[in-house]
């Protein structure tokens, strides 16, 4: 017996008490856990799931797909008549339930032009007798439009029918699978460029906020408290202002005959108005302004906690002010600087609204193309794959950061 002074009953009683307290603690955080699960884990989880699990087509035309399994797509021949007949029958059923558009949209992704092809053929077979479709529906389909004689339509259909697939990730990496099954470069190359560009823009913004934020935070931390408090309000005020208002303010400042250009021209620095709005420059400048508090606040709180006597000691031991500042003071601000940089970088890499409003073409980021696939092209699966890769990229950078700087070195406030 480990504890001779307690009886069995007393031990049981104590265990019960501990268990009860644990339960109580869990009950207290349960609403929070539930909240995080419902608003955070579940939506992200379903989006991740969507990026590779895609049963839509398999549910729409199961028989056709089973038949197509036996067809070898490399042969260059059309699928066998049985498969075509099965397709005709299922297309009629889809037309009756008004679901042919769904199939059309899915197949169209692999074969642009298939959308109108499927919809018009669905209309053509809608009123045909079922027995006729079962026996010779395939021929009806082939006669409805000459595009059906193109093997690539059927390849696209078979491909869209697989339930678990990596196609969306391949597309998100500018790759595709050839009919022979090899992974090759796509004709259109856009997503990798956009990822690279987002990284670059996020990097510029992080460096800019650090360069501007550092002296300001230093001044705030060392100024008399009355002045510091007043200045702090100026840091926080934009933070409390609506994001849209701040972005729109930049439009007014940067536009062709806006405030900045008027001043430059009245000072005769330039004769022609500079083109600043709708460029990468506008994106970087506006986002630097918007994200500045995320850099200043952690820096300030870290600097506030640095004992000034270290710096004074360095001076009294003979160091010159600038080397003393760089070698003694700056290393102590690293936790704040890295926290600020991490915050700014991660927030800016996925930023959407500001690049959309002031970015023009060269200020576009990956988030804008994700929005395009969510809202315009309705390709949520590709949007999910692009988003998942972005999440992966950020996790990777975070891991790298942890290896290089160390997460324990982080101080958020």
């Amino acid at each position: 017996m480990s504890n001779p002074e307690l009886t069995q009953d007393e031990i049981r009683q104590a265990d019960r008490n501990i268990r009860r307290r644990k339960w109580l603690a869990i009950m207290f955080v349960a609403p929070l856990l539930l909240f995080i699960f419902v608003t955070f884990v579940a939506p992200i989880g379903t989006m991740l799931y969507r990026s590779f699990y895609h049963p839509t087509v398999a549910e729409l035309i199961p028989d056709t797909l089973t038949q197509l399994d036996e067809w070898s797509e490399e042969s260059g021949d059309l699928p066998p008549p049985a498969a075509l007949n099965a397709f005709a029958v299922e297309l009629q059923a889809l037309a009756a339930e008004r679901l042919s558009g769904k199939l059309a949209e899915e197949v169209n992704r692999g074969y642009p032009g298939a959308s109108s092809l499927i919809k018009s053929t669905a209309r053509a077979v809608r009123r045909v007798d079922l027995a006729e479709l079962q026996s010779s529906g395939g021929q009806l389909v082939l006669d409805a439009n000459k595009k059906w004689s193109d093997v690539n339509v059927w390849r696209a259909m078979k491909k869209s029918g697989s339930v678990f697939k990596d196609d969306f990730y391949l597309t998100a990496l500018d790759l595709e699978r050839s009919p022979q099954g090899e992974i090759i470069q796509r004709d259109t190359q856009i997503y990798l460029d956009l990822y690279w560009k987002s990284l670059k823009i996020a990097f510029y913004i992080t460096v800019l906020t650090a360069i501007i934020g550092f002296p300001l935070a230093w001044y705030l931390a060392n100024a008399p408290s009355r002045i510091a408090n007043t200045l702090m309000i100026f840091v926080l005020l934009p933070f409390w202002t609506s994001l849209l208002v701040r972005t729109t303010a930049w439009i007014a400042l940067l536009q062709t005959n806006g405030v900045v250009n008027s001043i430059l021209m009245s000072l005769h620095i330039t004769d022609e108005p500079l083109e600043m709005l709708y460029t990468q420059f506008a994106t970087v400048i506006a986002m630097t302004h918007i994200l500045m508090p995320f850099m200043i606040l952690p820096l300030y709180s870290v600097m506030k906690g640095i004992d000034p006597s270290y710096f004074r000691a360095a001076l009294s031991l003979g160091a010159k002010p600038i080397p003393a500042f760089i070698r003694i003071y700056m290393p102590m601000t690293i936790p704040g600087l890295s926290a600020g940089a991490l915050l700014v970088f991660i927030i800016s890499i996925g930023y959407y609204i500001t690049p959309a409003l002031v970015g023009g073409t060269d200020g576009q980021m990956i988030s804008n193309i994700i929005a395009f696939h969510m809202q315009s092209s309705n390709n949520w699966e590709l949007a999910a794959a692009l988003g998942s890769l972005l999440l992966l990229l950020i996790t990777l950078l975070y891991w790298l950061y942890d290896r290089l700087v160390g997460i324990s070195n982080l101080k958020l406030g």
Partner: protein
Amino acid sequence: MKKKLLTLAAAAAVGMTASLASADELTAVSFGGSYGAAQQKHMIDPYMEKTGNNILFENYSGGVAELKAQVESGNVLWDVIDMEVIDLERACSEGLLEVFPQDQLPPGDDGTPAAEDFSEEALANECGVGNIVWTVLYAYNHDTIEGGEPTSMTDFFDTATFPGKRAMRKRPQVNMEWALLADGVPKAEVYDVLATDEGQARAFAKLDSIKDDIVWFDSWSQAPQLLNDGGAVMVQSANGRFFAAIQEENKPFEMVWDGHVFDLDVWAIVKGTDKKDLAIDFIKFATGSKPLSGMPDVAYGPTRQSSYAYIDESIVPKLPSAHLDEGLKASSLFWADYGESLGEKFNEWLLQ
């Protein structure tokens, strides 16, 4: 005192449930802005006054994403939706909308049966009823234009004669059509040419010729501003945006109708709503001759012929419906086929 308050509260509560029970409530969504205000004035308010039913009138930014999310999750919050035909085609064939009983539409105020009164395009899709004709065209500013007065689509792409920036919306729709028109493709063949790889390459090549002079924007509302502050000398936008700037703010803008790409907006019913009958009733009212005749307030043409009896004759030439011969009907079928692939190619071209 306390008891009195309680009784009052109870009475209020009873009153509220009673009013909820007697009058029905419908949620309608549209695009807001001055267009939404015109719909509020000529469709929503008169309907509420006439029937006593309440309508919650909300805004959305177009597209089918929200509609799709509502229908697929089974959590339908909207009943009636105003959408562009380009989206209607897709939403209808994907089963996101109810089929509208077009044979129940009332005749025009002059007695013309609905089927003849409406323009053909307005009833072309079984899921919606045409509401307005609107168009995308370009305008220039008399104060900033140099080299004369542009009159055609060729002039829009002619930066030698008319130097200066052109502002276009950042998407392939309309821009690809314009490029081909300016390159000499006849209107009737634009979409056939654009469906081929060579045609697409030709359109991009034409856009390439002015690429350095294009300012891209994301929302129609940015367009009049760009024209006003000199950000561009020729700007693409929905005609209603320019009309408002000319009519209400007296801006020296001139609209060029050559090669405008017109389309319709329709009222449609969200699939799975439990207020289908009420929704049908509202759409029948809203697409009547009189309510439609209010749409020219924002320069969008009515889809019923009988509505013109109510419209001031001086306004008619400024409506897209008066310029259909010069324009091109946007093809929703084409964009359902090529919207995504051209969207990707367009983005790739932008990044080059």
